[in-house]
């Protein structure tokens, strides 16, 4: 902050005669004001599309068809009534698909991952480091490159366009990240607790269930949120593996062509439903999520 050279001497010339307190304090105040302005602008750009979508879902029709943006209006729930009404089967059906598929794949992948993570973090069987790199490399496979094989395998197994197909795919895609995250959390837990439990007669698995699992709460929460959100948000896999009956909310929303006379009010409401769980989880678990992001990406 405290610069030297010509800029400073010029500033000293300019500020000569102003009795506004010490030079340094004023310059820091100016820098801080500019920085906060820039940060506010970036925060506004980050939030605005999300807020605008949510607002669009509760805007009355006159506000949607206005030629200039409308910021003040009496909110209405008509779009929600319209998309959730019994006559419109699809939206509720897709919503149910999304909920069931996301919950099931999250639950299975967390169970599989927490055992694997415990093995990597504590039991450390021979070659565990190599195994953990294999897990990491699985995470780095691009799912979009797997859609053609997935399509054929699902057809071959007779599960094309079923929820089961998506549950299996998302579970497998989620296990690497969840294992990696949980391993990071478990390594940080004090080893003494577990050793004490084992001295008291617990087996490895007993110590795991009684001591480790209760302490791994935040890690489990972060891993579950990431797993749920991946399944809930995905477009590519659902679009190719379950395009019709078993399809999810994002696929349905991506098919609504807004420029073909579809009312933006309904689409705003649908998109709000898609964003709702992610927004909710972010508020509930932001601290663990940031920690999870950092450990999932950085920690070796």
């Amino acid at each position, binding site marked *: 902050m405290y610069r030297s050279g010509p800029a400073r001497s010029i500033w000293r010339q300019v500020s000569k005669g102003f009795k506004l307190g010490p030079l340094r304090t004023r310059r820091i105040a100016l820098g801080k004001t500019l920085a906060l302005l820039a940060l506010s602008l970036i925060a506004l750009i980050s939030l605005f599309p999300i807020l605008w979508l949510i607002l669009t879902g509760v805007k009355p029709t006159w506000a949607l068809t206005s030629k200039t943006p409308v910021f003040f209006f009496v909110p209405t729930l008509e779009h929600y009534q319209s998309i959730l009404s019994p006559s419109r089967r699809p939206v509720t059906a897709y919503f149910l698909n999304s909920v069931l598929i996301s919950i099931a794949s999250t639950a299975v992948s967390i169970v599989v991952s927490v055992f694997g993570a415990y093995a990597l973090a504590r039991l450390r069987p021979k070659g565990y480091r190599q*195994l953990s790199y294999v897990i990491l490399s699985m995470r780095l496979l691009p799912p979009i490159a797997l859609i*053609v094989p997935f399509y054929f395998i699902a057809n071959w197994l007779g599960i094309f366009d079923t929820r089961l197909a998506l549950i299996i795919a998302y579970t497998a895609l989620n296990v690497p990240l969840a294992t990696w995250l949980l391993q990071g959390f478990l390594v940080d837990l004090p080893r003494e607790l577990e050793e004490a439990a084992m001295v008291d007669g617990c087996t490895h698995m007993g110590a795991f269930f009684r001591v480790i699992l209760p302490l791994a709460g935040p890690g489990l929460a972060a891993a579950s949120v990431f797993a749920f959100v991946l399944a809930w948000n995905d477009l590519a896999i659902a679009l190719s593996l379950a395009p019709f009956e078993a399809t999810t909310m994002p696929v349905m929303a991506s098919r609504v062509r807004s420029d073909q006379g579809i009312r933006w009010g309904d689409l705003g409401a649908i998109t709000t439903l898609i964003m709702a769980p992610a927004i909710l989880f972010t508020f509930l678990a932001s601290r663990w999520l940031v920690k999870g992001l950092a450990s999932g990406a950085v920690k070796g």
Partner: protein
Amino acid sequence: MDPSLSTTRQTTENARSFIPFFRISTTDRLGYLLLAPAFLLFFGVLLLPSLFNIYTSFQEWVLFGDAPRFVGWDNYLEVFSDPRYLATIWRTLQFVVVTVGLQFLIGFVVALLLDRYLNELRSVQIIFLLPMMISEVAAALGWRLLLVGQYSFLNWLVGLFGFSPQVWLGPQLAFLSIIFVEVWQHTPFVILLIFAALQGVSKELVEAGKLDGAGTWATVRHIVFPLIQPAVLVVLMFRTMFALRAFGAIWTLTHGGPANRTTVLGIDIYQQAFVIFDLGVAGVLSVLLTVFSGIISILYIRFLSREALS
């Protein structure tokens, strides 16, 4: 293991030592058992399909058409000679370099400012977490709402500054628009990770630098940057890998159009497979994407194992 098992183990030790699995220590054995479900999933659901791509890439195979026929390297030759596919690859590289570059520049500056001025305000993190947590489809629809149409919000906004309305997803601007949306959604990842790394930089060191007369730029360049370099590398590799596989937002915004102007590798794989039904070419493009991604993964893993050693 269960305490009662230890006596059983002694009695059956001789018989068991013939089977390699039982010659490993109990802890190791339990470890492998616990890891087995994860590795079964990887093998069946991730690894086999990846190998299937290699098989597909050597076949002439039309979806809903005749049985696949082996054609050797024909599909690869086609991809590397047809301007359409070369354009896709070139466009993907442009997309990746520009989005990752912008994400990093903006993210790094924002993280520095946050670290300096809003260090104690953790709730700011929520604002930056939101775009990256919502679905790419939702993000794309949000921007569609703001971009599309003569009376769209953005056209109103540029109108305030005296510009005429633009067709933001039209032939001229579509590629820039998808880059913008990608940068919008994923810069927060850079912000959060670099911010987390900056929190670990000792304030004394920075103060010491300043006492020695280093300016802001010199402090960042010579003191802060070397300290957070591992995080920077990880962020760059992750963003590169994820930009390579971009699909959801672009598909929702433009379907790869107009006239393929926003067709990147991910979009082209889907189009070849499920729109044009040319599975052979889809296979080649999938292999290419996996290889590009794999090169970066290998760099990343080598980097991690070096870090773990030091």
